[in-house]
Each structure stands twice: as C-alpha cells, then as structure tokens.
C-alpha cells in the first residue's frame, strides 16, 4: 500500500517537474490525446494526406504565431501582424512580377520590420498599451497595404523557381509516401521555430524577454533594457509576418488587401492554447506551434467526422468550443501536477 502510494507520489513528482520545467508538455499531451481520439473515431483521419493537410494549414498562422508568442512572453500584443502579412505579400509579389523576387523577399522582410519597429517606438514613446497601439496600426498598415496595392488583388500566373524553395512541394518526402502533400514551408516553419526557441531559451536576450513580461520592475531593477527588448520583439514579429506573406504568395501567387485578416487572433489563440499567459512572462514557441497544430487538428477532425447535425458551414463553432476545452484540460493537467 505504501509502496503504491510512494510510486504514485514519485510519478506525480516527476510529472510536476516535467510540467513546471516545460510549458510544452501540457499542450503536447492535449494534442496527442486529441490526435489519438480522432484516429480512433474518424476512420479517414490517420493518413499522410490528412497529416500533411494539418501541417500545411498551420504554416502561415504558425510563422506569425512564433513572433506573436515571443511578444506575448514579453508582455505585449501585436494585432497588426495580419496587415503586415498583406504588405509582405504585396512587396514580394510586385517584385516577383518584375522578375526581381529576391529584392521582393528583402523588401517583404525589411518593411514589415520597420513597421514592427514603429509599433515598438509608439509603445515606448506613448506608453499606451500595445493592444491599443497595434489596434491602431492594424488599420493604418491595412491602409498602407491598400496604397501599395492600389486596392487591387495581385495575382500572377507565371511560376518562378524561388516559389519552389519558399513554398513548393516537398518532393523528396512526397515522392516517398503515397498521398503525402508536404510543402517546403513546413521546413521554414520548423527552422524558424528552432531559431526563435534557441533565442528564447539559450541566450541572454531570451532571459530578458521572459523577465520583461514576468516582472517588468524586477527586470528593470536588474538593468534589463526593457524598451529595447520590446522593440526588438516587435521587429522580429513584423519580419515574421512579412515572411508569412512571402510564403503565402509563393504557394498561391495571390495577395489581397484583406490577406491575413484575423490571423492576429488565430495566433493569439494558438499561443494561449500552447500555454502562453495573456499577461506575459510565460509561454514557449514549441507550445505555441503545438497550439496551432492542435487547432488545425481539431478543425480537420471535426470536418472528417462529418457529424450530421454539424453543418459544414458551422464547424468553426465546434472548433471554438474545442479550443476552450483544450485550454481547460491543459490547465487541469497543470494543476493536478
């Protein structure tokens, strides 16, 4: 009896350690549970086609979410990411149309970076909460997208080799497996994830990011330059949003003024599902990516289940319920530990 108790206690202790040391475990466990559940109840769920679909659906939001999560950990929001994504798409697409896609790529990273810096500078100068600052720049940047585009849809029909690199089919894998439809954007997403996760966990900068969001005054007292941390985070977020626009254009060769609308909220939702706190100071890039995948998996699963009383034009509501459920489960798991 005592042996059992101590084993259980030991297990609970190690689970506690695991959960406390890594905020990714909770969302990961939730995701795996959902994945297994759908594999059992939806007969057509467990296939490479479905898995690659889940991944593809997560790429654009995923790239944006990396930056948004970094910002959220430092205690700030960026609601202008969707607009910067559209700007990135246009800048890249317009140059691609002129035959200078590399210049386009550069512009699509640089200008959103500047816009991100502007977000940060306004925040620092005015001390208005970033939620409000970027609510404003969200519209301003959307207007900028309108000016850059002339309000017109940009669509190309010609294929460029650079598209294959940025967001082409991942032939190496796709040829090996029947039905697989992986794209190179997945590789980019993974690379960026590793890079930013490294920045966050393995560098002094990452330490400052956590401190800026976790306890601003304490960090400032220890000499952390909080405005600089936030500024850099806004720049990173802008750059990633611009890159998401590039990835989008590389596959779909289309960008609209409304491109990326709503992405900011998807990214925040994913970050929260992935264990980030809305008040800052906690979260992980891995977790946020698991959050994006979790939402993507839920959507695919709900559609595949083809439940008669859930029409196909309303599955988003079910996904919404499931997101809340996932956060509750995640929270329960944490508190049990």
């Amino acid at each position, binding site marked *: 009896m005592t042996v059992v108790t101590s084993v259980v206690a030991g297990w609970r202790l190690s689970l506690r350690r695991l959960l406390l040391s890594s905020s990714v475990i909770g969302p990961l466990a939730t995701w795996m549970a959902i994945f297994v559940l759908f594999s059992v109840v939806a007969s057509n769920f467990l296939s490479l086609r479905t898995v690659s679909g889940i991944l593809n659906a997560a790429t654009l939001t995923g790239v944006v979410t990396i930056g948004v999560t970094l910002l959220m950990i430092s205690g700030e929001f960026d609601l202008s990411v969707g607009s910067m994504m559209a700007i990135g798409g246009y800048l890249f697409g317009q140059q691609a*149309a002129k035959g200078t896609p590399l210049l386009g790529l550069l*512009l699509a990273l640089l200008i959103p970076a500047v816009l991100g810096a502007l977000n940060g500078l306004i925040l620092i100068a005015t001390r208005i909460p970033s939620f409000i600052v970027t609510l404003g720049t969200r519209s301003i940047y959307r207007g900028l997208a309108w000016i850059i585009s*002339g*309000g*017109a*849809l940009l669509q190309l029909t010609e294929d460029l080799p650079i598209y294959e690199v940025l967001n082409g089919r991942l032939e190496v894998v796709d040829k090996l497996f029947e039905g697989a439809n992986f794209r190179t954007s997945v590789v980019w997403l993974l690379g960026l994830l590793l890079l930013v996760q490294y920045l966050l966990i393995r560098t002094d900068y990452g330490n400052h990011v956590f401190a800026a969001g976790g306890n601003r005054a304490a960090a400032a007292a220890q000499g952390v330059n909080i405005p600089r941390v936030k500024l850099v985070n806004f720049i990173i977020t802008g750059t990633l949003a611009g890159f998401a626009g590039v990835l989008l254009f590389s596959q779909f*060769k289309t960008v609209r003024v409304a491109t990326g609308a709503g992405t900011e909220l998807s990214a925040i939702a994913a970050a929260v599902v992935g264990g980030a706190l809305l008040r800052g100071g906690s979260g992980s890039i891995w977790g946020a990516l698991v959050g994006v995948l979790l939402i993507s998996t839920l959507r695919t699963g709900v*559609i*595949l289940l083809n439940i008669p009383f859930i029409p196909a*034009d309303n599955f988003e509501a079910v996904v919404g319920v499931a997101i809340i459920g996932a956060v509750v489960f995640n929270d329960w798991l944490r508190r049990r530990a």
Partner: protein
Amino acid sequence: MGILSKWLAALALVAMLVAACAPATAEPPGVAPAEETPPEGAATEPAAPIEEPTAAVDPTRSLDLILVQHALCAWDSFWCTVERGITDAADDLGVNVTVLGPDEFDLEQTASLIDQAVAAQPDGIGLTVTDPVLFKEPIERALAAGIPVVGYNAGNGPIADGIDYLTYIGQDEYQGGYLGGLRMVAAGGTQGVCINQQVGHAGLDKRCNGLVDAFTESGLQAEVLAISDDPAESETIIGDYTTANPGADAFLTLGPNGANPFYAWMESAGMGAGDVVHGTFDLSPEITANIESGVTLFGIDQQPYLQGYAAVLMLTMVNRYGIAPALPVTATGPGFVDAGNVGAEPAPDRAVELIMVQHALCAWDAFWCVVQKGIETAAEQLGASVTVLGPDEFDLEQTAALIDQAIAAQPDGIALTVTDPVLFKEPIERALAAGIPVLAYNAGSGPLADGIDYLTYLGQDEYQGGYLGGLRMVEAGGSQGVCINQQVGHAGLDKRCQGFTDAFTESGLSAEVLSISDDPAESQTIIDDYYTANPGTDAFLTLGPNGANPFYAFLEAAGLGPDQVVHGTFDLSPEIVENIKNGTTLFGIDQQPFLQGYGAVLYLTLLLRQNIAPALPVSATGPGFVDLGNVAIVEALAGEYR
C-alpha cells in the same frame, strides 16, 4: 539603444525610399488589378488580364441582326410600338436589323422564317417564342450555328421553355401583381380581390398570386374572384361578392375583359373615384379614361417598345462586348401607367441631361473605368449629355453632398450609387421632391429594401447568380454540390449559396455550404478534408478569387481535374480566366459593370423620351456568365468593357 536606433533610422530610410518607388511603376503584363472585396452592398469584381485584342473583337463593328415575330405592324397595331423600339435601337446602336413576320397569324410559317433567318447567317436572332414546342428545333439549329438568340414578347424563358436561348424579354406577371398589390396597399387598400377572368391560365394565376402575396406580406387579406367571359354575368358576380364581403376595397382586374364589367358594377353601385382602390393590367380607352378621372389607380403595361429595343440591345451587347443578359427572364413590364404619366406622348428628340453620382471614380479605382465606359458609350449612342460626379477618395459624406450639388444643377435625371441608404436617403428624397427621376446602380438594394422611392437598382442578383450557376453545374454532370463560402454571415454571399443549394435541391440532388477562412493554406486543407469526408462531392462553387485560389491549390495537390469535378465561381481573376480557358472551371460570374453604367443612362433616357420605366425594383446586370464560349472576348475587353 544608441546603436540600435541609428541602425533603425537607416533601415527606415532605406525602406521608405524603396516603398516610395515600388508602387509608382506600371503594372507589368500578367498582373491584373482587381477589385478588393468591397463593403457590403457595393459588390464589385475583378477584371481579367489585359491582352492584345484579337481581330474578331471589335466593340464598334457593325452587326446584322434578324428579328422574327409572329405578327407585324402591317396588320396588328400592337406591333407598331415593338417595331418602333426595334428601329430606334438599331439607329442608336448603329446596327442593321431586319424584321421578319408572316402575313397573317401562322406559326408554321413563323417557324420556317426562323430557318430562313438562320440561313442568312446573321450576328444574332431575336424571336417571339410563341410556341416553344414548334420553335424548339429551329431555335436549336440557330444555336448550333453559333448564332446568339433572344426571345421577346412571347415565351417563358430558356429554363421553362427548355430551349437554351439567352433570355426572354417580356412581362414578369408575378411581379406585376405583386408590385401592383403594394401600390394598392400604399393607396389605402385593406382587403384585396384579384378578379380573374380565366382561372387556370398560368400567366393570369401568377398575377393573382403576386397580388395575394403583396397583401399577405403587408399583414392584410386578399383572395381571387373568378369571373367569366360574359360581362353581364361578371358584373353580377362582382356585385354578389362585394355584398358578401363588404370590407373588400382593393380590386385588381387582369385586363379590359375584367375591367369592363368592374366599371359597370361601380356605376350600378353608384361608386366613383375614391370609393375603392382599382388597379388593372393592360390599357384600353376605357381604362385610360378612368385613370385620368382618378377611378383607376394604375394600368399595367408590358412596355412593348422596350421589348423591341431590348432585343436589339442585348444581341448587340453579346456580339460586341460578350455581355449576356443576367436572367432567364428580362422583365420589360410591369410598366405602371398612372395619373402621373397617363397620356404622355413620346418625345424621341428631347435633349437629355443627366448627372451620375458615384462613391468612386475611374481616376482612382480601375473597377469604375468599366462603369465609366458604359456610361460614355450609352451617352454617345443615345445622344444624351452625362456628367459623372464622385469624391477624390472614398468618402460617403462627400458623396452625399455631391447628390445635393447634382440636384442644384436641375438635371433631367440623376443616377447614383446607394452606397449608404441611411446617409443617402434624405438627399435622394430631395431630388425626388424636386421632380427629378432617380435610379441606383452598382450599390444599393432596390427601392423596396432601401426604403427610398427611386426607380430601380441596377446590379447583380446574387441569388440568381448562385441558382443559375448551380443549374449549369447540374447540367454539366454535377451530382453533389458544395458552396465554398469565405464569409458565412455576409448577406450577399449567403444568397449566392442559397441559390446554389436551391438549384441542386430542385434538381433532386444535394448540396451544402462549406465555410472557409481568410487564410488560403488553412482553406485548402479545409476543402481537402471536406472532400475526404464527402468523396461523392463533384460540384464546387466558389464565391470569388478568395475561394477559387485555395480551391485550385486543393485540386492540384489532390490530383483532381475537370474529369472528376465541376467548378464554377463568382468573379474573375487571372487565375480563374486561365482555368476557364483550360477547362478546369466551367464558368466565372461577373456583375457586368459596363451594363450598370450603360443601363443607368439608357433607363433614364427611355423614361424621359419614351415614358418607359424600369419594370422591377432590382434590374439585374449580373450574373454575367463567362465560360469557354466568351472567355476570349471578355479577356480581350477586360478593363474596358468587362
């Protein structure tokens, strides 16, 4: 911080310089400007890529048209009005029209005249579909020869007649009864009676249905009273009915055959103007006299002049611009004749000065150049002088102020975009109070929905777009449909899907709506998952480039082609045009903005010169279908006429 801010300043400078240069350069070939999804109500659609016009496409070329009708002005005076419309249109548009008809009423001979017309290889044939069974084969021979065909005056539309001509130009019987009923309610009618001399006649029954619906929807009662061919008997029937139903105070008669005994009953009952509300279909000397004396509120006319004019106009539009009539039935009537316009004589040479007020201009929004082209083309062909007003940038307040500016100039007519019905209501009502006729184009919902008493709204009929698109897809072999909606809850998009699912349901098939998002990668997966879950799906409707774009990505990734799926879409984009050409996409639907500009000028001019009023609250300029048959001309004229 110091180094960082310097670096940032340099970065910002570089970025701004580049940004300043970027949009200034001209659009390269293959990059098509297209309209962004507009605010609700202001439906717009993109233009296709610009290519060198092919030799066959010449929007000014002369045309030879042949019209075949079952009667002629020479022996039936009704047709003189139709033929006047035909001749006027031929003059205005600069086309050659030959009118063929039998020497006396003879359907066999009329049918053979169709074959005669086909043999002459004209650019278009207009005809009265007097006998759909008899005329079916000759019409199909014309279609097989690649000659566009429209029906006018007699017919039921391509769907009801089972013949694939473009449209039927004639009276919308149901709307006649319905809109007449609404007028009678507005005039104080509280209990309606539809006096039907031939119950069981499809056209007449539709009129009565319309009246009853108008009363019912107004929270009032109405019913049908059957009378006979015998006027004396009919007068007694009406008398007995009113004794049994003393509350009945609104009477609709369906022609002189009903109006005549009705007037007799009024006289015997000692009633006069103002005692009851009376409306009727058709005109006769007796009816005209009673409209003038105020006994009869209105007579409904099918506007035969417009039937002749529109037949020539539509065949010309198809040939020159690839613009097709939007609906299977193009309504020329009901045209209401009331105290305001009874007895008005046509003034064909009257000078017409119009002002158009729109929320955007060609100068800063490419979409409007096509509308502008329509306005200019109509003004030139009709000899009207037209001024277009619009703000320097999207500014509804300023647009509203421009309406007042237009009124101050005292033009003969005003056409405008009802972009904001609440904001524009008062200025429009000031124009109406000043006696200036007003109609709406491109943005609006029609006088009934907007609650403003302008003539009509010229724009896309969203429901019909989905419905007719759905029928086309069923015909092309679609058996299980899905409407891919990027913004469920948007009234216009929901109507498109509703029309689509109705078309499948009425064909005994199933269809549903799939909601996608703004993220194309996500949307592609949603479509793929839906297809995995519903592998029987073979007909996909997308509601614009936003939906078509991820759909094509889905097709490519899933390795599907036109052999497995039927695809139709709203709007055009370079990608959609490409896919129409390679057979992947059956059709793209556009709202035909050229027709919005052209139609606005035409309707006002016809009203001022010929007393012709638009028949319906909404005059559909779209759906305009772009398919393999006309994609070349549409592409060639993109940005100008399409």
